């Protein structure tokens, strides 16, 4: 296989990491919603934690994107 083609495939494979981020964000928001439905008075207090969890989960997927960009542009 040519190096250029292998690079493209590798970068595409690295983007699979975003699937995990999608699952994580879904779990965070789903659980927040179900918790907020059960106890609406406590929901407002946990909103910063929700945002923190969202950002942390999204970042792990973006690490995969960084790997893809390193494969494409740095080598």
């Amino acid at each position: 296989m040519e190096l250029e083609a292998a690079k493209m495939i590798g970068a595409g494979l690295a983007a699979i990491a975003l699937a995990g981020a999608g699952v994580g964000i879904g779990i965070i928001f789903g659980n927040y919603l179900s918790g907020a439905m059960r106890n609406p008075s406590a929901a407002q207090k946990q909103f910063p934690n929700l945002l923190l969890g969202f950002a942390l989960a999204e970042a792990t997927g973006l690490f995969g994107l960084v790997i893809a960009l390193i494969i494409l542009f740095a080598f």
Partner: protein
Amino acid sequence: MTTNPMHQFNIYRIGPEVNLGGIDISFTNASLFMMLSALTIMSLFFWGTRKKALVPTKIQLLAELSYTFISKMINETAGLKAKPYFPFIFTLFMFVLFCNMLGMLPYSFTVTSHIIVTFVLAASIFIGVTIIGFLKHGMGYLKLFVPSGVPLVLLPLIVIIEIISYLSRPVSLSVRLFANMMAGHTMLKVFGGFVVSLGIIGGWLPLSFTVALTGLEILIAFLQAYVFAILTCIYLNDALDLRH
């Protein structure tokens, strides 16, 4: 050239080339936007705190709002003992926020979409927090790497994992901000390219997507500045009182 979504991250020189001992320190568009965001923050607080009216004007309200927002965040995550570090965390938050927000303007440059900028911020936080920890607890700060209640057999493994996770803090802190900013702006450019290539008939769908994504990106720009500041608070809390 303009269709390349990576073109927006180019750094180019503004004005003459300045060399200091082989290092290129000339004025670039990145330094221009850093200065712009610093100037915006300074003028916001200059105009916001000039009159100190009881019924605040809009600018004063903005200044007070951001102050109480960060002050409350520090109180909740790190407690009263982190109060002396409020100016640093506030400056950090405002700088990252304004760099992100100025980057959302069309044809502008996002400073935080370059890993070297975010890595310098994160590395200085990491070094500073480590120094604070050692000053506060002496060699006892190393207890951070030895969690209590772990069986003796597992302890060597856990200590190695804790050390690696501690050392990867600056990397994860900087890559998080950089990757979010870069991915978001690249995505906006790619969708903008779809609008052009699909033309007047098919271009409306990606155009509406671009509008929605711009809204999302503004949210992310705020969120990432917030997360950067809150993680700094959490690291600082680890250094100020050893709990685990």
